[in-house]
């Protein structure tokens, strides 16, 4: 049973605004990437906004997020500072980690975005360890491990799930199933069985959501969090979604032959941002004018953040040797 039957008005707007902000930021990165000033790989989240916003907006600030190579949306949803994120992607000293990691390592302790790790599955046990520390010390924080559909192919997922359930740790495994590992389809990598069955085999309760329906993601997350905070252990959320752009980079790549334009169009018609916008317009929670105004505000923030990032200095190369040891 959903613990909230009807979302509060403010939360609906927050979810929508968060997704719209992610969309516009990622589009701006995509547009400006050709300038070749963002000199690191970028894995954009266009099409997957609901999976980020629906989960992270259900969290408290004290809850901890562990992410992957595709972390921009998670960071922004967790309350991250757009200026610090863009500066990091531009390799600047003002980046959230001073240019040490770039797009694939976005982290910021101010908002408990503890780490983003680009090696598939590598962040999962870190989230479990964070949950173990909270469990040992009696704090009711929850740790979130974001993973992709390929992560369940990694041994470390199963090792982590086994241990998390063994000790009923307050951790949420959030699997964004975008159907592809780089260019390889899910059915070429995994047999025909539900991904949720893997978590269930470890004794972990699962939620299978339309990952493009932000309210469904949000409600399922709240349920899972309630379990975690009442010492009932981990949950596994499977969010079906789709990556619009290439695995890594700013472009559409439906033409190179690993997926069809027809498949892409099906998912584009299920655009999480547009779907939710229509929903809120229909309910009268937002007007067209509201959405235009919101877009303008976000664009202003984005322009200012790009200016900040571009005008920030590079870190001095003599500091590259610093912080090898504490």
């Amino acid at each position, binding site marked *: 049973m959903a613990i909230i039957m009807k979302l509060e008005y403010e939360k609906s707007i927050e979810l929508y605004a968060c997704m719209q902000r992610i969309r516009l930021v990622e589009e701006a990165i995509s547009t400006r990437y050709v300038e070749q000033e963002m000199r690191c790989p970028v894995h954009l989240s266009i099409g997957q906004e609901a999976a980020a916003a629906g989960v992270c907006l259900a969290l408290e600030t004290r809850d901890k997020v562990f992410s992957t190579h595709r972390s921009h949306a998670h960071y922004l949803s967790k309350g991250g500072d757009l200026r610090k994120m863009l500066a990091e992607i531009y390799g600047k000293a003002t980046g959230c*980690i*001073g240019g*040490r*990691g770039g797009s694939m*390592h976005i*982290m910021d*302790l101010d908002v408990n975005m*503890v*780490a983003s*790790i680009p*090696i598939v599955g*590598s962040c*999962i*046990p*870190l*989230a*479990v*360890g*964070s*949950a*173990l*520390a*909270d469990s*040992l010390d009696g704090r009711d924080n929850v*740790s979130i491990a974001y993973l992709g559909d390929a992560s369940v192919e990694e*041994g*470390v997922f199963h*090792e*982590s799930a*086994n*241990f998390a359930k*063994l000790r009923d740790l307050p951790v949420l495994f959030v699997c964004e199933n975008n159907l592809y590992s780089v260019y390889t389809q899910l059915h070429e990598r995994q047999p025909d069985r539900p991904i949720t069955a893997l978590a269930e085999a470890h004794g972990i309760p699962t939620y299978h959501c339309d990952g493009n329906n932000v309210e469904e993601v949000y409600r399922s997350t709240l349920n899972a969090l309630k379990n975690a905070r009442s010492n009932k252990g981990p949950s596994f959320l499977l969010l079906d979604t789709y990556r619009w752009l290439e695995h890594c980079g700013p472009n559409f790549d439906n033409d190179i032959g690993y997926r069809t334009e027809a498949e892409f169009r099906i998912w584009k018609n299920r655009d999480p941002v547009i779907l939710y916008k229509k929903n809120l317009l229909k309910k009268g929670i937002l007007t067209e004018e509201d959405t235009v105004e919101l877009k303008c505000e976000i664009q202003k923030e984005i322009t200012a953040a790009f200016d900040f990032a571009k005008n920030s200095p590079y870190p001095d190369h003599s500091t590259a040797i*610093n*912080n*090898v*040891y*504490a």
Partner: protein
Amino acid sequence: MTSDRSISLGEAIREGLLQASQRDSSVIHFAEGVDDPLAVFGTLKGFGDKIGHERMIEMPISENALTGVAIGVALSGKRPVISFQRVEFAMLALEQIANNAAKFHYVSNGQHNIPLVMRLIVGRGWGQGPEHSQSLEGMFAQFPGLKVIMPSLPEDAKGMIIAAVNDNNPVLVIEHRWNHYAVGNVPTEYYSKDIVGPKKIRNGDAVTLVATSYMTLECLRVADALSSVGVSVDLFDLRVLRPLDLEPIVQSVKKTGKLLTVDTGYRKYGIGAEIVSSIVEICFNFLKLAPIRLGLPDHPTPSSAGLIKNYYIDSIKILESLNTLIKLDRSSFEGVKKNIFNERKDIPIDVPDPFFKGPF
């Protein structure tokens, strides 16, 4: 600090870990069999009763994830200690060790610390064979961000394992199983020995001898046997492989002009390779003869007592290599060799040597 109490290195490790755990409640232990009757060769014996069983985290047979879990608790302010019963099991955790433990402080621009101790135990003897006796310090020492130590003597082992627990960096402690049996004087109280630099354990001018781990004990036997014929050597127990402090070795080679390194692990791409190449770069003009490296031969460790007959470096081989640098007269050389040989006598080659009793 002095002590008349003699205990083994294994007991010294246990005492250090226990005292560190009792002083700091954030220390928690992970191992496969962390609280079982044998408790990692006895080195964690009785910990549960003394510090609380909730601080003894049983590791499912999931080395990579549990190393990640330990990194995760370290990110949250704990001081985890993972004990791997053999080096080889830590290989399954290499992803977490190399990608996360070693890099978190750096990548986070100093915001994250990983105060993690990983104990890797090197097996030897009784047919341990190819995958229970590897000493892979050369590989682990490649990663910036890790500290890698190999304590050889009981007093160092206790102080250094305490320092490792208190260190805010990931520290790999590579313990040779045969070193566990070495006995020496160890103070009973809590003390910390800084994780720095090689330690000179014999002083001399004939040659500079640099050894790691169990090979330090074999070198000690040679150094002491040589003193009976009036030859003294500078013997360094390297102790800390990373960060590497070469300066004491540089000063010694400037004095002796001769260098012999003895690895516990492989000779190729080994610790000796790093030291010899650095010394050649820094002290080329001081070298009187080409340095020599000793280490394990270029094949896996076989199990059979017959096949390992010539596999490990021992004090006789060290003496023979050393003699090409110091050129003893024949009777002195044969005398020293005979003394060393008599000490070991007919002890089978696949069991620990009872000779190594301190004070060192």
